[in-house]
């Protein structure tokens, strides 16, 4: 890493960052194996559910409000998990990154809503 940062170099850097963010996966990292990918999607989905259920469970315990918070937060957690998986799979970056064009965001919302209604129909 050199310390002489002139402005053309900075612009070049910006371009490179933009390119790296647009790319499907991050830069020069090693390729993911199938097992690794499966593991990652699974953890993304499960972690959303864990957080939702945990919050719902402890709110219920604290406020003594029957199963209601658990039910609500279960579905919210499921939505968050599905959103996580969607983000990971579509390579927006495994994090909420909203500089992307609106269509991707809207489609993610639609899939969330669809999945949630599906869950409700089944449940």
């Amino acid at each position: 890493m050199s310390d002489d940062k002139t402005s053309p170099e900075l612009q070049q850097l910006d371009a490179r960052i933009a390119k790296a963010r647009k790319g499907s996966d991050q830069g020069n990292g090693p390729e993911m194996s199938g097992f690794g990918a499966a593991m990652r999607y699974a953890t993304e989905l499960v972690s959303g559910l864990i957080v939702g259920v945990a919050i719902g469970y402890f709110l219920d315990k604290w406020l003594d409000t029957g199963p209601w918070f658990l039910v609500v937060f279960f579905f919210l957690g499921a939505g968050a998990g599905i959103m996580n998986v969607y983000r990971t799979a579509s390579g927006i970056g495994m994090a909420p990154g909203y500089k992307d064009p609106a269509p991707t965001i809207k489609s993610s919302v639609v899939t969330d809503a669809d999945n949630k209604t599906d869950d409700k129909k089944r449940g």
Partner: protein
Amino acid sequence: MANPLEQFTIKTLVPIQLGEVNASLTNAGLFMVLTVAAVTLFLTLGMTRRAAVPGRWQSMAELSYEFIAGMIRDNVGNEGRRYFPFVFSLFMFILFANLIGMIPYSFTFTSHIAVTFTMAMVVFLGVTVIAIIRHGLHFFSFFLPTGVPMVMAPILVPIEVLSYLSRPISLSIRLFANMMAGHTMIKVFAGFVIPLGILGGWAPLTVIVALTAFEFLVAFLQAYVFTVLTCLYLNDAIHLH
């Protein structure tokens, strides 16, 4: 057959009791100390000669430095440079922990959720604090994407918040589950070798050889994934949209 999960038991080596707190040195603690010592020795001894044309060891040390420096440059940008020491320590710690865990009879402390969750929480809290310091209350606009109809907000904002809160969980579970699953799998197949005898034992033995090579890949890959996600979270915190 030996219990494949026995390798993960925590044993107290030197019992220390500080008041109410059990601060005993366990095998996990011992291997954390060993990992820190190994990383320190690897980097300091590698760089003692400071040759212009590096030898093998020095170039390995320089390579790991440049790998993380490049990762931060690509994922966070120029402002991420001040967080280099933290990210580099994190990467080297996890990588060496995973690799030392591959030595037979050693202990893999990254296969414990207590360890990985603590590291993930440090990252998560640190990144959140950085974001709030840099952006103040504007940070909370993070949870409502631009261009979303306000009708959707009551559903979307809780989902966003939960999605944000699930970051440390997925970060820690990924590392812990990968390490634990791999080590258990090797032990399970190893348990078949002797019972199947001289004729049938070769099949699981072959699998173990392949799995061991695969585990080395996973050891590196998981250290990489943990660090790259830290970089991405840092990027979100610094360049809040």
